[in-house]
């Protein structure tokens, strides 16, 4: 069982890298300029425009393939920042004394009192949309990561291999980096997926609310709100961005779940 999963292991990162590369470089693949009208507004799908045209007659396919880069970049940056802060806080909480752990948990509780979307909206008053997403992801995601990592760290701290590392005189930073982090890699990978999902949700919400990229920029989230009025004329214009957006969220979520289960099984 375990061997099978590990053999399949490299396929998942490879697929993920391919997907990310496709989304980031999508604009090069677009058949038309995504910001220029090329047909009658709300043209249904045809041989020339496989997904039809949107409200201004722009090619939906070109807009879809170019529309994920910014969203994904912002989400990846936001989740990486949240993860880094969270892991650092979690190590401090789990490795430090009980009172340090309590203090960190207390700070985390404080930050979690405000829902992430509200935080992002409030931050968007003064900050540009992308920055607001990053800051809100860190403020609302890092405490969650810190909790999980801290709890696991407190467990692993008492395991035989960490103890024997201490008993051969390894220094604390070495123990943390060499013993604890690798042993928690599955957990951290799972959490990274969840952070990415949260960041993506925030970035999408802000874009739909008009606080992210501005028209005529192609963006999946923006396309959702732009093309909603024409749902009955060209449903493809609405579903075309919805599908890759849902996939981009679904894949890291299920990867996170798989990583979490593998780790739970290994104990």
């Amino acid at each position, binding site marked *: 069982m375990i061997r099978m999963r590990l053999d399949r292991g490299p396929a998942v990162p490879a697929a993920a890298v391919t997907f990310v590369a496709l989304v980031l470089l999508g604009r090069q693949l677009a058949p038309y300029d995504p910001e220029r009208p090329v047909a009658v507004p709300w043209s249904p799908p045809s041989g020339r425009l496989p997904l039809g045209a949107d409200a201004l007659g722009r090619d939906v396919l070109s807009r879809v393939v170019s529309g994920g880069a910014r969203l994904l970049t912002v989400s990846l940056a936001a989740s990486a920042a949240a993860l880094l802060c969270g892991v650092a806080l979690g190590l401090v909480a789990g490795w430090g004394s009980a009172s340090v752990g309590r203090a960190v948990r207390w700070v985390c509780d404080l930050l979690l009192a405000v*829902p992430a979307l509200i935080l992002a909206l409030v931050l968007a008053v*003064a900050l540009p949309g992308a920055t607001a997403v990053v800051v809100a992801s860190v403020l609302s995601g890092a405490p969650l990561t810190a909790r999980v990592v801290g709890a696991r760290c407190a467990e692993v701290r008492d395991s035989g291999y960490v103890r024997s590392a201490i008993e051969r005189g390894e220094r604390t930073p070495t123990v943390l980096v060499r013993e604890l982090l690798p042993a928690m890699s599955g957990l951290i990978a799972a959490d990274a997926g969840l*952070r990415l999902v949260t960041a993506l*949700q925030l970035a999408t919400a802000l874009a739909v609310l*008009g606080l992210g990229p501005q028209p005529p920029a192609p963006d999946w989230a923006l396309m*959702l709100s732009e093309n*909603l009025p024409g*749902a009955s004329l060209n449903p493809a214009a*609405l579903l075309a961005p919805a599908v890759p*957006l849902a996939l981009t969220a679904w894949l890291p979520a299920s990867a996170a779940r798989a990583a979490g289960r593998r780790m739970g099984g290994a104990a």
Partner: protein
Amino acid sequence: MIPRALLRTVLLAVAATAVVFAATEILPGDMGDVRGAGRASAEDVARERERLGLDVPAPVRYLRWLGHLVRGELGRSLASGRPVADLLAERLPATAALVVGTLTVTVALTALALAVGFLRGGRGGALAPGLAAVPQAVYAAVLGAVLSGVLGWLPAVSLLAPGSSPWAQPRALVLPALTLALPSAAFATVLLRGALTDVLRLPHVADARTRGLPARLILRRHVAPFLLVPSVRVLALMTGWLTAGTALVETVYGYPGTGGLLVSSVAVRDVPVVQAAALIPAVIVLVGMLVADLLDTAGRHRPGRSRRMAPVATAGGAA
């Protein structure tokens, strides 16, 4: 225990106000700059700042603002000049109706998903995390396209006459409520599934199985009572997040509630309105958590016992 839980809630509420205040007022580009943007000279900006009280240090301004807040003085909208309290009061019933309707659907869907999970012995459940991950806007788009665009069953825009009861047009509620409820139910299921798995691992549940009790009795007597507190916690969390989520659906569907007000105020940097509207979901989360804590304490007849249920809000995700 009870005063301690209360104290904690009050502290967290103060922290929430501090976060909201810090986010809106301390960051670069305050109201003075915005109002004067481009057109005004440096002196005009300074005068405007003084008029708005922005020349005072931030901590002092925060305490002043908190003092007003405690007395229920929410200030006036910078955009319309109307009292913020009036603006909110007009829109609260609509949002409350939306949240209540959504919660009902969410609770029903979650209960169904959990019952299925229990009957399958706590295994499986790959669907819920995936559904919870998909951004709310996708639900809005797909449901809007199908129910309103293609099938034409529901109005695409949920406009209500100002001041009219939201219950007068229940059809206007359906799309926004469904859009909010589907991902929320998926997320609540993810959170409670963990709690369910924990309860199923409790020794007395295994013992009841060994004694041959049928599944429905085990669920009713030996499992459900232990899910009460986690459920209330998740309910509190979901209520807060749903209230936050109204910002999106109200804007998309044009439903006249506080969420939509928050978004439009953010767009024009109407800080007093943003501050007040942002605190509503935060307060709901905190009050819900307080209720869960009190229930937890009441269920534990003797204080100081080890906490069996860890806080459930560890899985992450935005509303």
